[in-house]
């Protein structure tokens, strides 16, 4: 599996990508059991074949307008800082290979998204821009601790 391959998904009409080797599987949307006293973007937990997984919403993580979940939403199960978690996104649109020539670093990127979250920007054709996420840095150590706490309370 190539390192340059990304699973591309939509989020509020923007295009994002996650390295394919970080992704365990993709689930259709299912009911999430909310848990109290967590940050806004942590939606709750799901049961995946007997394993309890915390799930969070990328829209809220990125301060994009939140929406009602529908059956078209998907949960991507990802490996993130040595943990397995679910991430809710609008829809999966593509799997793409991004060549080094089509890769742009975050150097000039505006402040809208924290630079730590990003690997860079991928370009496909003349009009496609894919914001490539660095999953291992998406959550800060404090947020990771909180997520761990979510698992612990339910274990």
């Amino acid at each position, binding site marked *: 599996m190539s390192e340059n391959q990304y699973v591309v998904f939509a989020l509020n009409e*923007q295009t994002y990508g996650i390295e394919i080797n970080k992704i365990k599987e993709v689930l259709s949307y299912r009911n999430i059991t909310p848990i109290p006293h967590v940050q806004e973007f942590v939606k709750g937990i799901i049961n995946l074949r007997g394993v309890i997984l915390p799930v969070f919403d990328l829209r809220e993580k*990125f301060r994009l307008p939140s929406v009602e979940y529908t059956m078209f939403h998907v949960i991507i199960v990802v490996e993130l800082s040595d943990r397995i978690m679910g991430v809710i996104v609008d829809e999966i649109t593509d799997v793409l290979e991004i060549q080094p020539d089509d890769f742009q670093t975050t150097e*000039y990127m505006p*402040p*809208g*998204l924290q630079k*730590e979250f990003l690997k860079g920007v991928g370009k496909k054709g003349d009009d496609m*821009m894919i914001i490539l996420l660095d999953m*291992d840095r998406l959550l*800060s150590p404090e947020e990771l601790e909180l997520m761990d706490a979510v698992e612990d309370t339910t274990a």
Partner: protein
Amino acid sequence: MNVQDETTKIFHAETEDLLKSAEACLLRLEDEPVSGPEVEELFRVFHTLKSGFAVVGFDVASKYIHMIENLLERVRSNEVPVTGPLVSLLLENVDFISEMLNRGLSGEPVAASEDLEAGRVGLNRFLSPGPVSGEEKSGLEDAATDEAPSQDAPDESVFYSIEIHFRGDLFISGQDPILLLMNLTEFGECLEVTADLSELPSYDEMDMFDMYISWKLILKTSVTANVIEDVFMFVKDENEISINEIADPIVDTIGLDDPETPIGQVLVETGGITDEDLNHALSQQKMVGEILVEQGKIGKDVLERVVSKQKATRDAYRKTTIRVDVEKIDYLVNLAEEIGIALPRMQSLFSKGVDVYWSEIEQELENLIKINQDFQERIASVRMFPLEGTFRRFQRIARDTANEQGKKIKVRLSGVGTEMDKEVIEAVTDPLKHMVRNCVGHGIEKPEERKAAGKPEEGVIEFKAYRKAGKILIEIRDDGRGLDVDAIYQKALDKGIVRPGDVVDDNKIVDFLCHPGFSTASEVTSLSGRGVGMDVVKTEVERLGGSLLVETLKGKGTAFTLAIPLTFALTEVLHVQVNDISYLVPLLEVIGTLGFEAIRLRSFGADEKVYRFRGEYVPLVDLSRVFGMSGGERGLEGSSLVFFDTGRKRYGISVDEILDPYQVVVKSLESNYRSVQGITGATIMGDGSVALVIDLLSLEEIFFKDS
């Protein structure tokens, strides 16, 4: 302003220049230690320094410099060879004089007697066997005579104390005491001459044919007493002449073997003065402030406050005058003349009829615009100084630091003629000194280490200045061990500046180094490792609108580059309009303009947008939003986009209209209002309205600050 002030100011400026040229001279001598024009120049410089100090009444300093001058005199006549240690000693003395200057100007005694003594001992080492001058015995306080030391001092010299008391009617016998005294100097060296004027009557009572003065002198010579007596052959019978052989009037071993022994003590031991004299003299040498603190008249904090205020005043002194090359002024005078010619011609063309002479008027106007541009640039250049002096100082620091640490270095300078605004030079020099010390202290390895690494024992430090794209770049490059990126990273982790897993590139390294209180030196030396410096450099450079870059390669070396914008009064700008407001953007940083196409626009995160410009996605900055101006969200449809490269970032702004570029004089808003973030200043447009000139770097900072 009173005359005294004016004199002091001129003295200050001149002395600083002289010291700088002495330093430059010495550094050249160090590269090529031969007696030649450099030594001549040094001699001249120290001579001028001596007179300068004497004119403003710093006699102690003047006398001290006189000793240096004597030493140089010997170097000039090839009696003392030019060597590395000699150059080092003279460099130390340049510093010492500069210290004396500052202390003197702030009203303190110019130097502590111990320091003067230490300096004297140092100078003396190069003068053996003969002492520097006739000041040995009398110390620095009353060197009434200082004849240049005689040459070929014999090995076996004896000392004679000669007392001469002439009869009042000496002149009748046709003898001239001056000639007699001069005869004496031919035998050897007069270490001390004192004229006893106590019998000299007041002016009214004086008979010009009478002799009132008697002399006492100490002669160091190899001739016998008889030979000396022969000088007085014709006068000795009628006058009181006593010639006595004495022991060495200065027991060299006391003062010289132990350089710690203060001169005062030496003098007491040799019987030159009493303890009481010494204590009295010493009490006058002390800093007034310290005495007052000791006596409890003022607190130490008060003293420190006053001293720092004094320093500020002294700095202010420095800013009020600049020395300008006559060539530059001549050029300005020429330009003024050209304007003087062009204007009446315009006038006459106008009066002859605008319609008829339209094309001539246009031509003349163009000419005037050119002259004006030249004029503005030249005026700005009056404040510009070549970096040579600064670089020479760095060379000096690098060299001293290397010596101190037993390292070998070679310093290369290039672009020393590059000119920079005096104020900017002054602002960056001090912080840069830290960096120079760091380069040698951390960067360059010890000779053994270099040898083991297969590098030449001599490290190379290069100072380079050049102009590039409207900026002046100053580069400090060494071929040392390079920055220890791992250690820096570890330290940054420890200090919590960085998170585990963060990507570290060269820019990040600079950020870490510039973090206040950051230092990787395991030991703190007097040179570097105190954790101050880099952050000062960065702050200062950024205040000037510049940036600091670093490149480093393990085992190969490190290069720091400062990029500082050239400041000209005349700026080339592009005129744009946003929501009916005129803005001017510096043309230098504009990399392109485009008509808006929706297909190239992408939103990025919650509220930012990026636009595809030349195959790259760059942010679009909303001017109204950044400046907090009303006008609300503008539609981008139909607008034009202007893109910039500030050297650090690329971004674009959307505007309603792009008008012509032209040259403007930027006026500061601060003089009557206050500084506004993101705005350099304002300018008056052709129609009399006022337009704001955007400061792209500052705009960028506001925009990117949360990223």
